[in-house]
């Protein structure tokens, strides 16, 4: 019991010196849209911190593959419908974890801490 507490204390103390970093889930997003919506959809992906991996044209539709943080995609179904007049379709799956950029991480940390204080 005492060694468990000692181990836990040591770890919590030590981690503070190890540059703790927040990670977020990043999705692999596959969007199929009519060509005329291309500009709007790419612009939106950029504003969502997405990284476009590739675009393939097929007849008059475009297939975009991108890495996008999950946090930006929680409402993507209605958003994409609005951007494409209902014609856009997408699928996504978890791809990897990545560092959360500093300015966004600080907001998430602040939120988590205020939640914790509210609980206490």
């Amino acid at each position, binding site marked *: 019991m005492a060694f468990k*507490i000692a181990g836990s204390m040591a770890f919590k103390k030590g981690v503070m010196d190890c540059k703790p970093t927040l990670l977020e889930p990043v999705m692999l997003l596959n969007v199929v849209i009519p060509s005329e919506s291309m500009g709007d959809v790419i612009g939106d992906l950029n504003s969502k911190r997405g990284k476009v991996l590739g675009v393939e044209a097929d007849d008059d539709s475009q297939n975009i593959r991108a890495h996008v943080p999950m946090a930006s995609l929680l*409402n993507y179904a209605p958003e994409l419908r609005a951007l494409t007049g209902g014609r856009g379709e997408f699928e996504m799956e978890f791809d990897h974890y990545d560092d959360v950029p500093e300015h966004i991480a600080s907001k998430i940390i602040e939120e988590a801490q205020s939640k914790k204080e509210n609980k206490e």
Partner: protein
Amino acid sequence: MKSYSAEWIRNVGLIGHGGSGKTSTAEAILYIAGVSDRLGKIGDNSSIMDFDPDEVKRGNSTNASLATFEFEKHKINLIDTPGTNNFVGDTVGCIRVVDGAVVVIGAETGVQFYTEKTWKWANDQGIPRIIFLNKMDSEEAQITSILDVVRKKFSVKPVLMDLPVGKGAEFKGIVDLVEQKYFEYEKDGKGIGKPTDIPANLADEVETTRMELVEAVAEADDVLIEHYLETGELTEEEFLGGLRQGISTGRLVPVLLGSALHNIGIDRLMDAMVQYFPSPDKRSAQLATTLNGEDTTEVATNVEGPFTAQVFKTIADPYAGKLTLFRVFSGKLTGDSSVYNVNQETSERVGQLMSLQGKKQIQLPEVVAGDIACVAKLKVTGTGDSLGPDAKDAVKFDDIPFPKAVLARGMVPKTRADEEKISNALHRLCEEDPTIKVERDPQTHELIVSGMGAVHLDVILERLKRRFGVEVDVKPPKVPYLETIRKSTKVQGKYKKQTGGRGQYGDCWLEIGPIAKGEGFQFENKIVGGSIPRGYVPAVEKGVHEAMAGGVLAHFPMVDIRVAVYDGSYHDVDSS
């Protein structure tokens, strides 16, 4: 209702964009067929097809509905589908089991995005199509511009079968280009057109449009075109044969006109369903897999073969319980028997066989190859499952290509009682609707329900409440953040409590550092010389592990960290 053999059956789906009038068209059809004694209106309780409280409240379809009726010696199984992304599962299921689809397009709005989507699904499954241009009574009604869009977007040849008589509110009838007769309708009447002479001022237009029609049909077939070029005409038989063939190959799409709301042109649409759409036995064989999972087999519509069927829809009926709707692809099924469910690998008792007219049930003595029917109270059978006679002769049909859920929400039951009921309730809803996905996030432990859109999720919530008495709070799903570290350090942790009696003493030195992404957690014992006895090391590891569950930044789990314990001290009595 008596049993019909396949050649006398038509399975027809109504598909298209929301608001184009699919359900109104179905209501008018059922009125003409004598199923209803007045024309049902959407958004009140008079509608046969939109009977679900969700649909009455919203004024649009949230479910596919089946209505079976007899018309001109045929039995027609009519499936009305919802016109939105949110309830796409029912449309995809319907397209699997029909042999013809009426694509309803509002003449005032033209082709809309959901028209395009449903068209594509029907095209992918090789389902013959007829276009019904509804709302010809609208002042904004268009024909030519819509057909141009159809031609361009869908790469098919739409052929106009009708010409309208009267524009906007004056729309009162249709010139049938095939029969070369004018059918005049009583507005909001019984829906039966009265044949009269073609108005003189339309004679020229009728002539040219009819030529286009005959030419288009002739072009669909090499033999026909030869004959047509020789004689300049087609016999009635040749014309109908060519048209049917053009439709079944998807090259020709007949376009009919009408107004469902005022019951104009609907009787002719019904004729077209019987005349133009193939009967189930004319449909090409369905692909299936044998039960060993290795061999592909083709199932033709043959009543002599073993019974095979696929479930395309499950309805929760407040009185009858669960209703399972299926299409029989071969063989036949009689009531009070049993079937083998291929997907669930178990047999099910089958009671009374029925068909439906909206929510009304009609008893059937048997269901033969090509027909659509339903049965109540199957225990484990869900939408998409294949049914067979027994484990020996059953086959598995290809899965119905239901799209994946796209919108996820976290659900928190409001009370303890809700919590106990929710998983059973969601399980039942998933059985009915394969576009609902339920999972528990392994990290945040949140219950995540996903669906096809915000309206779909709203309907799920309403069903949870109305049918199962379960209330939940809904919010966007929690993002499962993690924490890690980027640098290494060495640190001491010392826990000492020695104030009389049995004390506590533990002291360790740890090396903490990052490891490669995805490696999780590694722990190493590097103690030399017994500065901590071996028996205490697992406790150190456990302490570290517990600390990692809630990181220092925002209390998210920590990953990709290596910890080694390399030194420390202990007390003979107080350490544990």
